[in-house]
């Protein structure tokens, strides 16, 4: 589950097993959304928490745990994307941009498949900047400040991107609902 955590949560007592227990899913989702393949995601999660283990002493709650984890995930994902790109130099599909997307989520969750597929479909039409903010705010439930820090953008920019993304989200849903009504009427009208 998305768990947003407060500043300073990392008191001295918070240790690797607890952090892992709470945030492993977040790390996994984030890595997958940043383009790490399913096959590599386990290794990548491991990389992330080994960095946490190594740096925990220096961390001491300077940012929220989620923000910190996000930045580690981004570094790990970049490294893996770069390696994947080198390995498959001809593959034009490997992105070097930090773009979150939900294709991995769709592949994952059988029981939510339809809704996730729809959500992914809607978000895939967003501007990358808006989509990143929207996913972190509405799905991972980070705070505006956490997102500002994680993405290195001013808080005001977080809010304006969020507002635009929400508007786009609602418009897409309205269009989707209109299309559904339309096809339902057609289906009803032409037996």
């Amino acid at each position, binding site marked *: *589950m*998305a768990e947003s955590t407060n500043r300073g949560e990392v008191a001295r007592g918070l*240790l690797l*097993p607890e952090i892992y227990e709470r945030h492993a899913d977040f790390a996994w989702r984030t890595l997958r959304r940043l383009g790490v393949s399913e096959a590599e995601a386990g290794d990548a999660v491991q990389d992330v*928490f080994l960095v946490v283990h190594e740096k925990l002493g220096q961390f001491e709650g300077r940012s929220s745990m989620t923000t910190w984890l996000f930045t580690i995930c981004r570094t790990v994902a970049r490294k893996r994307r770069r390696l994947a790109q080198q390995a498959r130099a001809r593959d034009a599909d490997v992105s070097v941009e930090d773009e979150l997307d939900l294709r991995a989520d769709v592949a994952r969750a059988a029981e939510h498949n339809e809704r996730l597929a729809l959500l992914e479909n*809607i978000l895939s039409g967003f501007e990358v900047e808006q989509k990143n903010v929207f996913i972190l705010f509405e799905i991972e439930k980070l705070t505006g*400040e956490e997102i500002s820090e994680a993405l290195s953008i001013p808080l005001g920019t977080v809010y304006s991107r969020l507002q635009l993304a929400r508007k786009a989200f609602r418009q897409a*849903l309205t269009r989707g609902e209109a299309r559904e009504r339309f096809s339902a009427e057609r289906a009803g009208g032409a037996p």
Partner: protein
Amino acid sequence: MSDPKHLTDDGADASDFERELLGAAQNVGLSAGEKRAIWTGIALQAFPAATASAAASGSLAPGAATAKAGLALGPWLKGLLVICGLAGISAGIYGWRHAAASRAQAAQVASAHAVVVASAPSAQVAPASDAPPATDVPSSAAVEAPSSASPATAASANQNASPAESKSALREESLAVLEIRHTLRAGDASGALGLLEQARQRFPRGALSQEREALGIEALAKSGARAAAARQADAFLRAHPKSPYAADVQSFQSH
């Protein structure tokens, strides 16, 4: 400026459908099995890393290094035990990275495990270091264990070991402490005390000695030797007032 409500929060201005869509993506995650397996991989690698860094910073006094490593690793082992289960460690070890390396580590862990179980002191030796002697301790478990095995592997555990040796020594020590904890949690307090004696001899200045002694105090109390447990708890807290195990140990002090 303050944040708007998240659309999936209670009271947010969002339709049920919007909530459902976003909620679907919030529930995506690792299966319990995957989570465990990844953790095992992390645990196996973070262990030696922790020892190496403690050993590398030669400026630290031995006592300080011990306390530091104990702080970093102690509650960690709890996590390892809770998440993996001791049986999982020896039987189903499975790291994500480099299958071969994992297999090698698994073999090491398994053999360390075997050493802990098999080797027993042939004579009762007074506990080393700062722990007060436990005179009224029933130690039947130590007597039951085979007394032929050699404690040789442990001798290399100390100061002059190479980094590789000290990594593996820490792994063995951590397994020994896990074994004590496991035995104690399984309700066998005297068995735990027997294992504790062995661990004291094998790792007299081990990085995990605080965790070990804290477990020993608990084992004493549970074996019925409450007075001895209280004395040891007092001594422990005098020696390590800021130990991460202080809170556990306090509950065994006499009131």
